[in-house]
């Protein structure tokens, strides 16, 4: 979804000098990168190297024919959109080219508008095709992870609880000790809580993925949200002997989003910072307005996150199991959810960490703008 990525490249292959020049001019004025070649061989070489989004090729050329270029380009990458240019006498060939996979054809002579239109349509189609391909891969992956992990993550606590109760019932007949009974009931309650937080996390994830954020976008003041969350965790932090510090400027931390999701986001980061801290350590939440964004840093003084794990930190169900790293209860979904929320809001999240010193999660979110700003930009009245 990065709109700001490098412009798509277009390759024009035509033996006619004037045609190459005018095509190049029109396409580059569209803000696209363009490369021109006078024959099929050189053109194909460039296609392989450049991986352009679209190729415009003249059907009638000396050397490798346009028709062959079409099929060879698709051998290189079937997602490259092919547009063929053809003289009136070769409409039949153009039809043949379309059959072999060209996207459309332009009969000569054509106007700059016609070329622009066809290039735009072609690139739009490519974008959609790539997006749906990505979507399919993502959905397939998600489905597979979902099946495996729902089975494992939901069933494990349930099976453990069931087994406790079942064995307890059996041992009861043989006269069980009350101490063991109490201990096991305690464990059953713990595992039930685990199941509940897993389900809650899952619902949040579904909410984020269902686009709830796009539906409800209201002004949310991060400072008051964060102060509230810290208030909720004061007791937990005290029990862990962790100090909570906040330094955020007044009135300059407003973003646009869904209240619940924004709370979940900072709730996750703050509870992590408390859980993965050391006794006598502290959690610092700081930040403010910077360049149209609100930047919030949540820092802890824990053992730090080994570099090899950082790329996976935001993955679904990723948990560090390492000696030296505190074993804490958790669903493995917290950071994944946080990342989803941040990207749905058009922001970013990154982590810095130093062994033995601590980790800092830095969230950047677009700052709230009054609706009047949108009107000025030609949005709505």
């Amino acid at each position, binding site marked *: 979804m990065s709109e700001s990525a490098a412009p798509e490249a277009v390759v024009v292959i035509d033996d006619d000098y004037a045609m190459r020049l005018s095509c190049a001019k029109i396409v580059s004025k569209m803000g696209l990168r363009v490369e021109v070649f006078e024959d099929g061989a050189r053109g194909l070489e460039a296609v392989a190297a450049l991986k352009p989004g679209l190729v415009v090729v003249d059907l009638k050329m000396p050397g490798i024919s346009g028709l062959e270029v079409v099929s060879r380009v698709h051998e290189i990458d079937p997602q490259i959109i092919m547009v063929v240019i053809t003289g009136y006498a070769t409409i039949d060939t153009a039809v043949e080219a379309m059959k072999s996979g060209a996207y459309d054809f332009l009969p000569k002579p054509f106007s700059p508008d016609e070329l622009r239109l066809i290039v735009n349509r072609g690139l739009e189609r490519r974008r959609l095709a790539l997006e749906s391909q990505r979507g399919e891969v993502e959905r397939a992956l998600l489905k597979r992870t979902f099946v495996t992990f729902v089975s494992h993550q939901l069933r494990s606590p349930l099976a453990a609880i069931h*087994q406790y109760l079942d064995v307890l019932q059996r041992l009861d007949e043989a006269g069980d000790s009350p101490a063991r009974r109490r201990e096991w009931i305690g464990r059953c309650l713990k595992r039930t809580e685990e199941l509940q937080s897993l389900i809650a996390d899952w619902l949040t994830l579904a909410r984020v993925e269902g686009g709830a954020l796009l539906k409800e976008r209201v002004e949310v003041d991060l400072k008051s949200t964060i102060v509230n969350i810290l208030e909720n965790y004061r007791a937990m932090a005290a029990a862990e002997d962790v100090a909570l510090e906040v330094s955020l400027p007044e009135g300059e931390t407003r973003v646009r989003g869904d209240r619940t999701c924004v709370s979940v986001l900072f709730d996750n980061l703050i509870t992590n910072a408390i859980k993965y801290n050391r006794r006598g350590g502290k959690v610092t939440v700081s930040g403010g307005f910077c360049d149209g964004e609100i930047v919030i840093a949540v820092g802890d003084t824990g053992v730090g996150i080994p570099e090899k794990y950082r790329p996976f930190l935001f993955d679904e169900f990723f948990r560090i199991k390492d000696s030296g790293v505190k074993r804490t209860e958790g669903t493995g979904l917290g950071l994944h959810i946080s990342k989803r929320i941040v990207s749905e809001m058009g922001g970013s999240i990154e982590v810095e960490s130093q062994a033995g010193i601590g980790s800092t999660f830095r969230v950047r979110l677009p700052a709230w703008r009054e609706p009047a700003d949108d009107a000025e930009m030609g949005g709505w009245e």
Partner: protein
Amino acid sequence: MCAKVLLIDDDRDFRTSVKSLLESSGYQVAEADSGHAGLLKVLEYKPHVIVLDIMMESSTEGYGVTYALKYLDEYAEFRGIPVFMVSSIKESPDERFPMSAEVEMIRPDRYLTKPLDIPRFLQLLEKAVASGVATD
């Protein structure tokens, strides 16, 4: 004789309840919380039966144990040891790991689902111990 059972499972609650169950039924029980720890324990504890969770941290961890038992020289004396494979998923292992060479090691009656059906589990265990002792 008091048969020795080794429980290999990363869920400590599951180990706790099953251990109590087995001890109340007259077995001696040792625990390990990972495949690796389990393999070390096998050499030291020399169990008569292994109860192995096959869905620990990674889906291959449980199979790593059976692989070692079957192919590694240091485990030669345990090659015939009865291994009960336990999973919380009702799915036979050859469906999930169709290419796994270890599948042949698993006898259908030694593939169990969590939570364990206690009477059936105890019955199978008893039979397995008897057959293990018989082939010793």
